[in-house]
């Protein structure tokens, strides 16, 4: 059942077995899994069925360094479906190494191993509509694939692992029918304003929520799960200080710390000496119709030997802003910049304004590239705009064998990179967040060393050359700042409340019936985009909650 909290009489009390807060990838996956037991599941969602500016504005906050981090209300959606309403759909599982304590990655090590998550990946893949759970090109395809770079010596990198792409599935639209079932109640426009704790602070007795229309209600349930993302969860825990003066789960000042995104950027130029037509930087479509893409992934044993985080690279089109690429399609995209959504424009372009000379050169590229642009426009219309499963991104094949390197790397957990509360309050009286995202020299080292190895491998393989300025690595890797809207680590799981917020079951230390779902609980970020693992971890949490008896709480 899906209903609107604005229609509830003031001071209504709602009873449920499980109360979940936040209807995004985590909350919806969890609700679907919990509902199968016949338990009554209440799913509170702040937003409505569509984006609403007043609700979205509740996400606004303060960013300490706007050059390093996007505005607090970008890259996340406060509406039914959460950020799955705008995500790109890239699905990648974490690697076994990501779960291990690594001496060269400070504060690394999950309290659970890869196998604990791996059991849930196939079902998570299914919910994300990313096809069969097989992320190795050698086994996922029955047919032989064209090599990514023929003759490339995969000594440090492998081209076998790949990404799969969701439709991208908007969880609100996709699971709307299932969420309308009798055992789930989705309550829209319901903003959590207070987590009510018992006097001893050891359990949650209820929640209080309000709508922007002004009415309020409360919830009584046996168990509560915050599925509100890595930023909002911090706000909710820190803002509730009436029993725990430091905020819930924050006795040791851990909530909001270790904030990670991903380190990403586009570097240098690869000039291949092998025939340009032999290089494959595009997508392969699996039999089930899912777009897959191989990449250059730094091998786990190399990460350990070189003492760097995980790192992947893709062959990317030359830098769009520089018209010397001579490509009409890229210049046309540059000219279309005002029409491209912020989240994608930030990735495609740079902040530096183009000179008049460059504008003229872009326009010349467009004029000379009309046939290519028309073909590209038709492809994007047919395969992206009108297609139910969308072509994931812009892929330009270089006729000259020229590419840049697009990388995506792990960010190291750092307690000084943190999310806290600002002085300012939102219209519901909740303090806004303050984001102080930081990176470490180890992050720079990961990228520098990985790029150097890639340069070496390309050269030694005799397939071409990779030229870049090693001095500009740090500048390039922070050009996008905290990348991807991947809000990781702020309420990390671990064995001790001194260094973590939840235990290995995602339960807040010291609170018997309060759980957290989402990438906030990940202790490390991997190179992988988080959504698939968010869903897998939510399914694991559902199994755990099924096995627990909350009658004593």
């Amino acid at each position, binding site marked *: 059942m899906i209903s609107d909290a604005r229609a509830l009489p003031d001071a209504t009390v709602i009873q449920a077995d499980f109360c979940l807060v936040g209807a995004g990838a985590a909350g919806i996956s969890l609700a679907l899994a919990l509902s199968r037991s016949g338990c009554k599941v209440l799913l509170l969602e702040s937003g409505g069925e569509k984006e609403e500016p007043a609700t979205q504005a509740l996400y606004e906050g303060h960013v300490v360094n706007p050059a390093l981090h996007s505005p607090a209300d970008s890259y996340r959606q406060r509406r039914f479906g959460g950020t799955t309403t705008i995500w790109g759909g890239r699905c990648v599982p974490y690697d076994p190494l990501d779960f291990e304590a690594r001496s060269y990655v400070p504060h690394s090590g999950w309290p659970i191993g890869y196998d604990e998550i791996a059991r849930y990946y196939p079902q998570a893949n299914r919910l994300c*509509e990313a096809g069969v759970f097989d992320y190795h090109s050698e086994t996922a395809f029955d047919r032989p694939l064209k090599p990514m770079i023929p003759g490339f010596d995969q000594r440090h990198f492998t081209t076998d692992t790949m990404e799969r792409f969701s*439709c991208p599935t908007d969880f609100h*639209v*996709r*699971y*709307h*029918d*299932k969420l309308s079932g009798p055992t789930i109640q989705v309550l829209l426009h319901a903003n959590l304003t207070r987590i009510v704790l018992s006097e001893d602070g050891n359990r949650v007795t209820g929640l209080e929520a309000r709508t922007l229309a002004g009415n309020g209600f409360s919830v009584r349930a046996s168990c509560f799960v915050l599925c509100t993302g890595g930023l909002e969860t911090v706000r909710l825990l820190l803002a509730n200080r009436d029993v725990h003066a430091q905020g819930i789960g924050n006795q040791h000042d851990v909530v909001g710390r270790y904030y990670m995104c991903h380190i990403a950027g586009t570097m240098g130029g690869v000039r291949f000496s092998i025939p340009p037509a032999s290089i494959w930087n595009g997508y392969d*479509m*699996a*039999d*089930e*119709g899912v777009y897959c893409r191989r990449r250059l992934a730094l091998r786990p044993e190399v990460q350990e030997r070189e003492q760097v985080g995980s790192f992947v690279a893709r062959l990317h089109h030359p830098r769009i802003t520089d018209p010397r690429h001579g490509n009409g399609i890229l210049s046309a995209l540059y000219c279309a910049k005002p029409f491209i959504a912020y989240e994608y424009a930030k990735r495609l372009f740079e902040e530096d304004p183009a000179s008049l000379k460059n504008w003229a050169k872009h326009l010349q590229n467009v004029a000379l590239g009309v046939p290519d642009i028309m073909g590209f426009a038709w492809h994007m219309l047919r395969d992206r705009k009108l*297609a*139910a*499963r969308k072509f994931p991104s812009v892929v330009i094949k270089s006729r000259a064998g020229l590419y840049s390197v697009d990388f995506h790397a792990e960010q190291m957990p750092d307690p000084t990179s943190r999310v806290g509360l600002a002085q300012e309050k939102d219209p519901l009286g909740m303090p806004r967040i303050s984001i102080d995202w930081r990176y470490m020299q180890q992050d720079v080292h990961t990228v520098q060393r990985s790029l150097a190895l890639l340069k070496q491998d390309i050269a030694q393989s005799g397939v071409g050359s990779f030229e870049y300025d090693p001095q500009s690595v740090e500048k390039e890797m922070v050009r996008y700042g905290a990348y991807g809207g991947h809000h990781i680590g702020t309420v990390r799981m671990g064995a001790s409340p001194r260094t973590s917020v939840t235990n290995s079951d995602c339960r807040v230390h010291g609170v018997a019936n309060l759980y957290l779902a989402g990438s906030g609980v990940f202790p490390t970020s991997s190179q992988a985009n988080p959504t698939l693992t968010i869903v897998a971890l939510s399914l694991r949490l559902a199994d755990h909650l099924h096995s627990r008896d909350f009658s004593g709480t």
Partner: protein
Amino acid sequence: MKRTVLVLGAGGYVGRKLMGALACCEDIQPTAGVRRMSSATGYESLCLDATDAGALEKHISGFDVVVNCIGSDPTVMRDSAQALLRAAQAREPLIVHFSSMAVYGSSCGLVDEQAALRGDIGAYASAKVEIERQMASYARRVILRPGCIYGPGSPAWSSRIAQLLKARRLGDLGAAGDGIANLVHVDDVAAAVIAAIRAPTCEGETFNLAMNNPPTWNDYFISFAKALGAVPVRRIGERALKIESRVVAPALKIGEMILGKLPVSVALPPFISPGLLGLLRQDITLVSEKAERELGLRWQNLEESLRVVAAFENWP
């Protein structure tokens, strides 16, 4: 001594497959009841009008068992069932009657034989419910409620689907294909009939017939498409499905009616009706444990069966 069995509707897909299976049984002597001799199956056949009680009474008098698998339009189904019940009064043969999972109508969740008969999804379903209620007055009956019968050449759930998959008009339907495909292989259906004939304890009983752990329709379509080689499977959105059911289907239906009046037979592509789309969304799972327990059924493996079905459908 062999049991004599008359199969009404033996010219249809299930009837033909059933005749083949019955003919392999040493203790059964089957006869095909067909409307036109052109539908004769190569086995001993009787040409009869199953809606004519008088003719039917004359023909069935020598049979121990009558299997009713007439599955045409609702009026014919009703008339032939009434005729059969009247004709059977004199000698009281065992009647094995083919009903359908359609009797459960729009029900959702796990559905066993005790579930209410809603029949609220169209004329076919309501006719099946009405006939079952009439059959209830006849003691020597076994009622079978198969799900979606697939197998090599199955018009509704194999050949039609294969055509649509090859044309990329079906595929991964997203939420529109989340319903449960209560598939049952035609060989399992035939095995159920044979078991019902042989087991006197089954008289008066009703059985659901569908495989264990059925896939969703999306899974069925993707697996079948892979077996057919109709890959990559296309993702089909709600907009395309609306066009199929609201524009293409009515046009093809009208075309079918017009072409049906011509002296020559012209086949049009299959269409996706609103009723079919409704079924593909329906979260209903037939519970067939009773058939396993009392008829001793073991369901064909779907993946292996699809390979065989695909080979049949791909045969030039």
